Structure formats: C-alpha cells, structure tokens
C-alpha cells in the first residue's frame, strides 16, 4: 500500500500539486480549500443557528436556497482536498487523524443533508447542534493532522 501511496505522490499530479509554481497548484489549492470551508461550514452554521432559534425573524424554509452555496463550498473543498491528498499521499493517507477528519466530514455532510431535507418540517435542535459540532470537529481534526507530534496520532 505504501508503494502505491509513494507512486501516487511521485506521479505527475502529485508533483504538480507540490512543486508547480502555478497559482493553481499548492497555493491555489489551499486557498480554494479555505474558501470552500468558509462557504460550506459558514452557511451550514448560519442555517443551523437559525434552526436552533437564533434570529427567529428569518423564515427558516426560505433559507433553503442557500444550500446551493453550501454544496458548492463542499465540492470546492472535496476537489482541492483530493488533489492535496495525492500530493501528500504518503503522509496524509497513512495518518489516522486524516481518516478521523474524513469520518467527521462524512457525518457533517450527512447531517447537513438531513438539515436540508427537514428544513420545511422543522429540524430538531439535536440535528442542528450535530451540524455545528461535526463541522467544528472536522476543522479541529484537519488542523491536528498538521501537528502529529503534538497529538501522538502520527503521520508516518
């Protein structure tokens, strides 16, 4: 498996991600990842806060249109994230923290999708709270993935 990760990392995509001076390579990818996060997490949080009772004057069902921006943000993160993971395959794809982050993202996506489908009938506070907590968890795990020495949950 490690040979596969090494081949991935040293392949043309992996090399381009890490070493190309293009603004679309690494520096562009981390920017797109942050902008995608701001949209996906930011808008999900705003909708979830409303579902928890903040700014009750906002008609909740009318917030449905903003989910388009949530999913655009998510896909920006997904595409840039896959590219960066290819560029750092031997470290990211062997790191337990990276998979914890992926698990939290998976549950974040699932809970946000549930929030979207239940928006008209009134989502439970538990669901709205889960959306907020799972995305916060994904951000925390994403950061911790960069500090293996601190957590002891290492990248090889």
């Amino acid at each position, binding site marked *: 498996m490690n040979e596969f990760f090494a081949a991935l990392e040293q392949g043309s995509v992996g090399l381009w991600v890490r070493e190309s*001076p293009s603004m679309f390579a690494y520096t562009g990818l981390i*920017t797109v990842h942050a902008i995608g*996060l701001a949209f996906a997490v*930011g*808008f999900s949080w705003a909708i979830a806060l409303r579902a928890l009772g903040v*700014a009750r004057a*906002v008609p909740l069902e*009318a917030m449905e249109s903003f989910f388009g921006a949530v999913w655009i943000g998510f896909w920006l993160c997904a595409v840039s994230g896959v590219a960066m993971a290819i560029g750092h395959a031997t470290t990211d794809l062997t790191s337990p923290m990276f998979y914890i982050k992926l698990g939290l993202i998976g549950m974040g996506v699932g809970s946000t999708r549930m929030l979207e489908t239940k928006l008209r009938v009134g989502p439970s506070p538990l669901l709205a709270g889960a959306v907020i907590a799972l995305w916060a968890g994904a*951000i925390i795990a994403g950061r911790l993935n960069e500090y293996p020495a601190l957590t002891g949950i290492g990248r090889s």
Partner: protein
Amino acid sequence: MIQSLAALLQNEAVHEFVATQAWAWPICEMIHFFGMALLMGTVGLLDLRMLGVAKALPVAALERLTPWGIAGFVLNLITGYVFIVGSPGGPKDSLANTAFQLKMAFILLAGLNVAAFHFTGVSRRASALGQGGDAPFAAKIVAASSLFLWLGVIYFGRMIMYSDSFYVREYYGF
C-alpha cells in the same frame, strides 16, 4: 514604520506563552477558522441575498445574524494578534510580509465598504427590503465588493506562510 509598529504591538508575555505552549498556535488556528466561517457564513448570506439569492428572505431579518459574524471577526482579531505577536521573530515577521500587508489592506477596504453602506443610506434602503424585494443597484455593488474583499482576505491570509518561498516571490513578487 514597521519597526515602530512592531514595537507597539510587541507583547513579551504572549510571545513567551506561544513559544512555550505547543498547543497555543494550533488552537488559535482552529479558532481562526471558526471565526472565518462565522463571518463568511453570516455576512456572505446577507451579500448573496442582496445579489438576488433567496429573495423570499426579508433583509432586516437576515441582519439579525450579523452579530454572529461580528463575533467571528472579533475571534479572528484576537487570534490574529496572537499570530502576529507569537511569530518566532515577533511582530515584524508579519508586518514585513507582503501577503500580510495586502490582507490588512483588504480588511480595511472591507471596513470602508461597510462604512459606505451605512453612511450613504444604502443600508436603510436594503434593510427595508421585504420578501421578494430586489436590492437597489448600489446595495448590489456593496454586496459584490464585500464578497470579493473577504475572499481576497482569505487568499492573502493563506499566502502569508508562503511569502518566503522562492517561487511565490519569483512569480507574484510577494
């Protein structure tokens, strides 16, 4: 200018804390991301509404979410200060960094954009928009500028740590 500003911002206690507590920096990074999401999530919603998304929402109601965006901005001011002061070389690391300077310039422009929105009376016309109301052209310009400026803040923020790398200097002059 940079030297005197660095001396003004200098804080030995914070610098020492960040240097000795390994968790301080990553925790501030997490909070900085939370703040960014809160700010973009709430201000961005308002911007998108003025640009014509989710017209069923009355603008005044959406503005009730703005305090959460301000809270996010305050979180980022505090954690940003920790990054500036806690950097290994102190505040001059950030202050002399071109990407950081551009980030601050964009934050200042975003602030001026909000000020223009309020002091020209455009915000009053925008707040009066009920369900289905189309925002005045001036409000759309403010909203588009806001999105552009905050995305620029994110871009230059991400570039700060790459300002020193050869190719960034070579290709962008940062």
